[in-house]
């Protein structure tokens, strides 16, 4: 069977990754040895233990959340509340601020630190109101030419009665459609859990990044294990099978780059984690800043439309 165009592209990308010592144009930021470490990790096939370690680190309770990065990276941050319809979803934060001298719009899921905040923010699982809040912030960002940053950190969209009645599926679909249409640079980064539809709703971006220990997947390891192994306890096996780690996502062409974390994981040093994320975000926006809006839309759609492996 002849290799598909996508497969050829993947192989070409892999050989590039494996041979170039400094990842040309470096979508990975940081110093030389960090890049080298990154490269070594990409070159090695992650083991099932490595993958499970990512799952645990991605969910670590001390891991920086969206608002931690907002605090560290954006000046003049002004949070916007409410979806202008039914309510204000605490699981999704949105607002405007300055990244360096550039005004950006930022949206992202927010988990909570303590039990009260977690309850208020539904553990980072948005209702349709959350996605509508994101959409109504995308709209003025597009109008004013503000680049859009999405920070993805959710176990998934909220699975509840009211969420369904308020149109969860439609909200996730429409949010992606609005992102596909935006004529401003968009950068998404998975900073913890990139859980399925709840994540992709705000991740249809020109550049999609993942932090080194983030995970991005179609279903949670527990959910996959419960369905395919009929035992949620087999989560580790499931994770090893569907490979939600950053290195595999890069290899499959699903993401454009990996953002390094401090040794031991982002939770060990919030300041350094924010600095590294900020470097990557600024770099990605710089690369896109001079591309005309129509061209951004065209390239973005072409990129997502090329994803998949078939023959």
């Amino acid at each position, binding site marked *: 069977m002849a290799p598909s165009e996508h497969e050829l592209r993947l192989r070409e990308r892999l050989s590039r990754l494996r041979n170039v010592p400094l990842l040309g144009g470096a979508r990975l930021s940081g110093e030389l040895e960090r890049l080298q470490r990154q490269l070594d990790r990409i070159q090695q096939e992650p083991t099932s233990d490595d993958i499970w370690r990512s799952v645990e680190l991605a969910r670590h309770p001390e891991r920086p959340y969206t608002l931690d990065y907002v605090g560290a990276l954006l000046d003049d941050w002004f949070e916007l509340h409410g979806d202008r319809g039914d309510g204000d979803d605490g699981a999704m934060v949105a607002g405007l601020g300055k990244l360096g001298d550039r005004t950006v719009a930022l949206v992202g899921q927010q988990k909570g630190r303590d039990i009260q905040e977690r309850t208020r923010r539904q553990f980072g699982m948005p209702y349709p109101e959350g996605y509508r809040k994101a959409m109504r912030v995308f709209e003025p960002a597009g109008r004013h030419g503000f680049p859009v940053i999405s920070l993805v950190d959710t176990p998934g969209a909220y699975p509840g009665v009211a969420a369904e009645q308020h149109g969860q*599926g439609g909200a996730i*679909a*429409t949010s992606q459609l609005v992102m596909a249409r935006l004529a401003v640079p968009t950068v998404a980064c998975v900073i913890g859990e990139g859980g399925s539809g709840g994540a992709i709703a705000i991740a249809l971006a020109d550049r999609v990044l993942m932090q080194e220990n983030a995970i991005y997947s179609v279903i949670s390891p527990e959910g996959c294990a419960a369905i*395919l192994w009929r035992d949620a306890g087999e989560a580790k096996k499931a994770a090893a099978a569907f*490979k939600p780690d950053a290195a595999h996502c890069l290899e499959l062409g699903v993401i454009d780059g990996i953002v390094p974390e401090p040794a031991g994981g982002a939770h060990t040093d919030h300041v350094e984690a924010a600095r590294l994320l900020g470097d990557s975000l600024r770099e990605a926006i710089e690369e896109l800043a001079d591309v005309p809006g129509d061209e951004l839309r065209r390239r973005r759609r072409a990129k997502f439309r090329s*994803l998949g*492996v078939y023959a």
Partner: protein
Amino acid sequence: MSKIDVSIETDDKPAPPPKHPNTCPECHSHYRDDELERAQWVCAQCGHHFPMRAHARITSLVDEGSFYEESADLHSEDPLGFFDLRPYTERLAEAEMSTGLADAIVIGQGAIEGRGCELAVMDFAFMGGSMGSVVGEKFSRACDSAAERGVPLITVTSSGGARMQEGILSLMQLPKTVCAVEDLHDAGQAMIVVMAHPTTAGVLASFASLGDVLLAEPGALIAFTGPRVVEQTTREKLPEDFGLAEQNLRFGHLDAILERPQIRPTLGRLLRVFG
């Protein structure tokens, strides 16, 4: 010590034998294949809509002899070397054998009441209508074909969601199909969606929700998260018609619920409206 625990006896009862696919799950009427086929797989007694295979669906919708299938030979690959209790490749081969299809969607050109259209029709019998790379690619090609020929796209959905065995690439079929719909929009063409039972998860959260007109069959489950998972995770008490087409209509997520025989004339009317 001699106490008998009745609950154990109850638990040990053998499960009822699986229902014959031609037996109505609502009223238990039983039909021959040709009876069901003539009735478009609708129960003559109670109106229950049996699942309908993709080619039968297309035949029931289009003008006779007008359908020309596209990309029929597109096959899934196994990008992850996925292995759960069985290898993905084995599941694919088995589904192909039992359904005669290469994957869970059939696309092609057709005409309804004399007006040209493109069709993309899902088949739940192929791995639960799950969306992997092939479903995403074929749906996208259907959008392109509609755009190139300047005709509307009719999409019939029936899917349990994304195909887990393709991992993150199956999730990427959501943005992929959304981008294809946006390309169709740019070409000025309409999409009309008919949601059959069930239209859930990844398919509902992408192209299925993006039609200019959203129709559904009676009793179809239309939910991002199905009732079992909602009940298990939130322990909420579910309303009786939770997630069904009827609830979705009441909450404003659908334009109409149509009995199966009404679908073709309605699509004919909508093709004239958008024409």
